[in-house]
């Protein structure tokens, strides 16, 4: 049975790593629903957050292949229940539409969004939330004409108390046999 998984990959920050990681998915014809990459809390360690729909069996095999890459430190997989995740969306509407009625302002309040910038021509609204929420706001705002819309990839933290990778790195330091 296919379900949504969020994969966190920690790697060295080397040129070409994104390609190394994504080919593991493309080779099995698995579509990446969302991908975010940036430096992690640990200096020098890069973090990828990838969302895919697939089966538990496939995700375990993918994880094995990802961890096999020399420059990958560790990969973890989570179901939606195991993480807190967010995406950020930006909406551009005509300022005229904002001023014509109080509908857009109401939506902004109702959805916990905020206005980032207002100019004579356009207004930019920002909302963070799950994809369904940012999509819902888009559908409602679009009635007044959204001229640009963009949504980021997912970012996520686990519900666990400790940072998984920090533990792992400490273990690496203590257990020299892992390195040899």
């Amino acid at each position: 049975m296919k379900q949504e998984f969020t994969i966190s990959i920690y790697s060295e920050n080397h040129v070409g790593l994104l390609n190394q990681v994504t080919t593991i998915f493309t080779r099995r014809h698995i579509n990446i629903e969302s991908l975010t990459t940036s430096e992690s809390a640990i200096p020098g360690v890069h973090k990828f957050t990838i969302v895919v729909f697939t089966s538990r069996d496939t995700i375990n095999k993918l994880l094995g292949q990802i961890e096999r890459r020399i420059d990958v430190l560790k990969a973890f997989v989570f179901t939606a229940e195991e993480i807190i995740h967010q995406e950020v969306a930006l909406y551009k509407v005509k300022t005229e539409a904002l001023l014509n009625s109080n509908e857009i302002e109401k939506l902004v309040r109702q959805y916990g969004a905020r206005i980032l910038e207002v100019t004579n021509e356009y207004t930019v609204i920002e909302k963070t939330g799950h994809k369904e929420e940012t999509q819902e706001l888009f559908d409602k705002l679009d009635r007044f004409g959204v001229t640009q819309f963009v949504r980021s990839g997912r970012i996520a933290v686990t519900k666990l108390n400790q940072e998984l990778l920090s533990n792992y790195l400490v273990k690496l330091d203590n257990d020299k046999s892992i390195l040899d």
Partner: protein
Amino acid sequence: METKTQPKTQEANPMKKQRMNGSEAVIQSLLHEGVDLLFGYPGGAIMPVYDALYHYNDKLHHVLVRHEQGAIHAAQGYARVTGKVGVSFVTSGPGATNAVTGIADAMVDSTPLVVISGQVAAPLLGTDAFQETDVVGITQPITKWNYQVKRAEEIPEAIAKAFYIARTGRPGPVVLDITKDAQFGMLDFTYSKDVKIRSYKPSKPVKKDSVAEAVRLINLSKKPLALIGQGVILGGAENELKTFLEKTGIPAAWTLLGLSALPSDHPLNVGMLGMHGNYGPNVKTNESDLIIAIGMRFDDRVTGNVQKYATNAKVIHLEIDPAEINKIIFADVPVVGNVKESLPMITEMAAEKNHDEWVKEFRACDKIEDQKIIQPELYPAKEGLTMGEVVRRVTEVYNDDAILVTDVGQQQMMASRYFKFKNTRSVVTSGGLGTMGFGLPAALGAQLGQPERPVCCFVGDGGIQMTIQELGTIWQTKAPVKIILLNNNYLGMVRQWQELFFDRRYASTLLENPDFQTISKGYHIESSIVDDRSELDAAIKKMVEHDGPYLLEVKVEKEGNVFPMVPTGASVSDIRLE
């Protein structure tokens, strides 16, 4: 698993810094890694390295191949028989892309290689410069690791890392792409083999509880079957395997790449697994109650239909690469780690036993196979020469102690089935990738790696033509490779499938061949041709006694087939004897 460490050279003290350019640093680094032989082909972007090599000709012998694919296959042959890392130089662009097939072959067959490719100067990268290709991008999925070196100072560390990664853990090919300006750039050279990579764990320590669980299953099992893969050879665990089998009395079958890990005449050796393997181990896989997979990866040519594979068995999987566990076949007990460590741990705790009755069941299968297939193939009464009888005669003449190199196809399966072995690391064949054209250059590399041992290279008339130009390299090196060309004027394995599964529609498998005798003569290689059984023994004798490379062409029957056979999609126990 650490493949055999290369001997330390008496080079300059690594701690003492020497000023030199990047190209010389490449050569010095290779010397520090104990490299004394490499295969390659020069070109614009690697010329500075070749220029540096010129001054080290006495320490580092370079074999000039005729095509870069040959350089990689030769390095593979060398690595497989010696346990050392094979090394190749290729130039940028077409040099590197020609090497791709060999690199992919080494990746899937876990062969330790370091391939150094020249690259255009760093300022030209991405400009579609002459002979520029994205080598790192192209080779990324087919290398264990690859890296582009753009500064001379990076060279010693990158090479140390490349060798470390190539030979440790599950071995594999590494590509280092070195820009031309890095080859010219100056650096203060020091070399340290003490490589630490925090993101790379070559081998995990074996878990004691998984060993205990494996032992429990082994002690309970009535019908255990051990499957030997190349992991045994790569881990240097041949003796550990033998001790394990002899204490537990468990019969053992081998994969194509596990061949020669256990002597052919060992009483517990029950033959070859898979598509063209032996009848017994295939049929008995589905009767066995315990499969002990040792350093193998359940390739589809071994398992046939996985839904109908080992249906009555629990599975213990001893494997160094955690990604192989549960990849194809679910492991009830995974034992991750080098089999050289895990096997003795299991042997120590396992009960001393024999499974004579169970082994007899294999021997009963052998009788059926012998009567239906092996006797007619090895001692044919019909007119045409069979591939099997040629293989039998050659292995007998060498007293079952030659190195076998094969190409891909019918001759590969015949040779693997009927060649016999006393010693390990005696087979070089393209398993996972099935690369036609592999044989000839791989045989050259194997011979240069083991100059004292006879090397027999079985090739077909199709495969030899894919890398036939390496006859030139064989001649130039005078490597005394014995090439046995089994010529049936067909792409035999494809033709066999067309016969069996495509209603004899022989689409594009009939070859109009050149005169191989003339070609051999053109390359100054002694040769002869046989098409009659009465001449075979004398021809083989002449080949064996010839001092130097030799090509023996045998005109075999045109439409011979390799049996038994597990058809695609069928269960191993549905193996066909005809």
